[in-house]
């Protein structure tokens, strides 16, 4: 056994500092290089994933069903063996230094799996022990209170609703004070109110310095929560960027012009602009790259006047992450 084989006893965040390991302190929260996975069935679930996730950020992995999001998370957390590549968590290789790496990581898996016959408190205490930490009533109480589970601490898990079970799984993952938290579709099957609570919890965690990596099918969730977004499709990372940057670069804007008097066809003068007629001729729509300069709008407006069309109202709309996502994934196929 190597020196790193011992789990840090002081809590994960202090693990690297305790060893005076400066490199590990500066390393990204997560760093994947050339990670590929081919399942025994021959299915290639991941291909050459390169990804760095910085400390303290909220990173959203976005992708359609079967894209490989869970596979990637499971590789990092030790549930799936990768076929090639390396992964480091805060500088610790997840295979060679699995103890140091795993001590830092909390996982809330996609599937709801709980020990039906255990009580909430027992199962959360169990998780903390499993991660090599002594009992800490105060911390466990705080986690359970944060997740509105404290009043149900004595309940057997089978008597809880699905949303409560999911919160129990989050409590288990937080029981050992991880500095990196994986949430694999945390809000699947969770009602709107609870989803808001969950988002708040995630923000609070981030404020306390926890790096959060989540997958989701709800694009508004990534839009609302994430600092950066990685789009994954068919086992490949198609794009990784700041959420706002992604929306700026890849996003399109739509300019809608409401007309005073309806028209039946786009006037000849305006043909070069690629306009579309809407609302039975009451409006025209113009789609343009968000990043592009504003000359085209300027000339469009001038041409509208030249065509004798009187403008009643103008509205612009930015494309959502969802639209970007759909177009990216379509491009791939």
């Amino acid at each position, binding site marked *: 056994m190597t020196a790193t*084989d*011992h*789990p840090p006893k002081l809590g994960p965040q202090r693990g690297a500092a305790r060893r005076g390991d400066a490199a590990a302190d500066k390393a990204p929260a997560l760093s994947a290089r050339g990670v590929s996975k081919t*399942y*025994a069935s021959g299915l290639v679930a991941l291909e050459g994933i390169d990804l760095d996730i910085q400390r303290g950020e909220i990173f959203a992995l976005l992708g359609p069903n079967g894209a490989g999001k869970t596979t990637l998370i*499971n590789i990092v*957390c*030790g*549930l*799936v*063996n990768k076929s090639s590549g390396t992964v480091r968590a805060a500088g610790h290789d997840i295979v060679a230094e*699995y*103890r*140091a*790496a*795993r*001590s830092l*990581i909390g*996982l809330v*898996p996609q*599937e709801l*799996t*709980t*020990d*039906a*016959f*255990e009580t909430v408190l*027992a199962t959360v*205490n*169990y*998780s*903390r*022990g*499993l*991660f*090599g*930490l*002594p009992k800490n009533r105060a911390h466990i109480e705080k986690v359970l209170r944060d997740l509105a589970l404290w009043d149900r601490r004595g309940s057997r898990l089978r008597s809880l609703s699905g949303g409560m079970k999911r919160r129990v799984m989050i409590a*288990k993952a937080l029981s050992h004070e991880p500095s990196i938290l994986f949430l694999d579709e945390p809000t699947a099957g969770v009602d709107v109110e609870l989803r808001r609570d969950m988002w708040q919890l995630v923000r609070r965690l981030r404020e306390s310095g926890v790096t959060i990596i989540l997958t989701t099918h709800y694009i508004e969730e990534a839009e609302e929560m994430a600092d950066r977004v990685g789009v994954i499709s068919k086992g490949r990372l198609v794009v990784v960027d700041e959420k706002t940057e992604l929306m700026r670069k890849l996003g399109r804007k739509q300019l809608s012009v409401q007309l005073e008097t309806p028209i039946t066809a786009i006037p000849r003068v305006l043909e070069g602009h690629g306009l579309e007629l809407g609302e039975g001729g009451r409006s025209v729509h113009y789609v343009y790259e968000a990043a592009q300069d504003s000359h085209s709008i300027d000339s469009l407006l001038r041409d509208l006047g030249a065509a004798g069309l009187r403008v009643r109202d103008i509205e612009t709309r930015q494309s959502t992450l969802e639209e970007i996502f759909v177009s990216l994934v379509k491009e791939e196929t």
Partner: protein
Amino acid sequence: MNVYAIRAIYAFEMARAFRSFGQSLISPVLSTSLYFVVFGAAIGGRIDEVEGVSYGAFIVPGLIMMMVLTQSVSNGSFGIYFPRFMGTIYELLSAPVSYVEAVIGYVGAAATKSIIIGVIILATAGLFVPLEIAHPLWMVAFLVLASVTFSLLGFIVGIWAESFEQLGFIPTLVVMPLAFLGGTFYSVDMLPGAWQTVVLFNPVVYLVSGFRWSFYGVADVSLGASLGVIGLFLAVALALVWWIFRTGYRLKA
């Protein structure tokens, strides 16, 4: 060593066992009592002493061993199969726990249960026949060794099994016959010539022989042979578990 993890697994498993402890005791105690009624009283009355021990007393160590072995395999296999089946195994796999620690926790708990059951069967047997234990320390040592070794075997079965059918397969098709043919009801030299050699390939023979020796000072094989075979069995089982965790066999995709 992640001692907290070992403690957590062990306590978790024991708590699970104690929730249904009454049930898990009824079956072995009842079947042991039935064996005594049938073999000890009904048939044993017509059998002379075996190696200077009354037949009823002669079968006690073997009966305990038989129950301990089957209980160990089923406890050991269920303990790890259940989280696999439920999916809760994800937590163990994602935790900073080495295979040694996982094995100590799971197998330790399974073996503890078997030992408790063994002691209770011993007490039950005391109600039917007068017992004497010549080498109490050796008796305990054999009980512990048998429980640990077969709980470990159970652990392997629990990882290998992919359905509840397979989970029951090894205990009924392998362990039960081996235990029955393990010299519980007879001494090896009561068998016809060739069989005396064949049964020596049955590891349970060595366990029962050693265990019976700790009671009555009579054995089918030497104490050294008993310990050697159990030790070998234990080493093979440990090597298998090491390989399982190394490769992630049936645990990781």
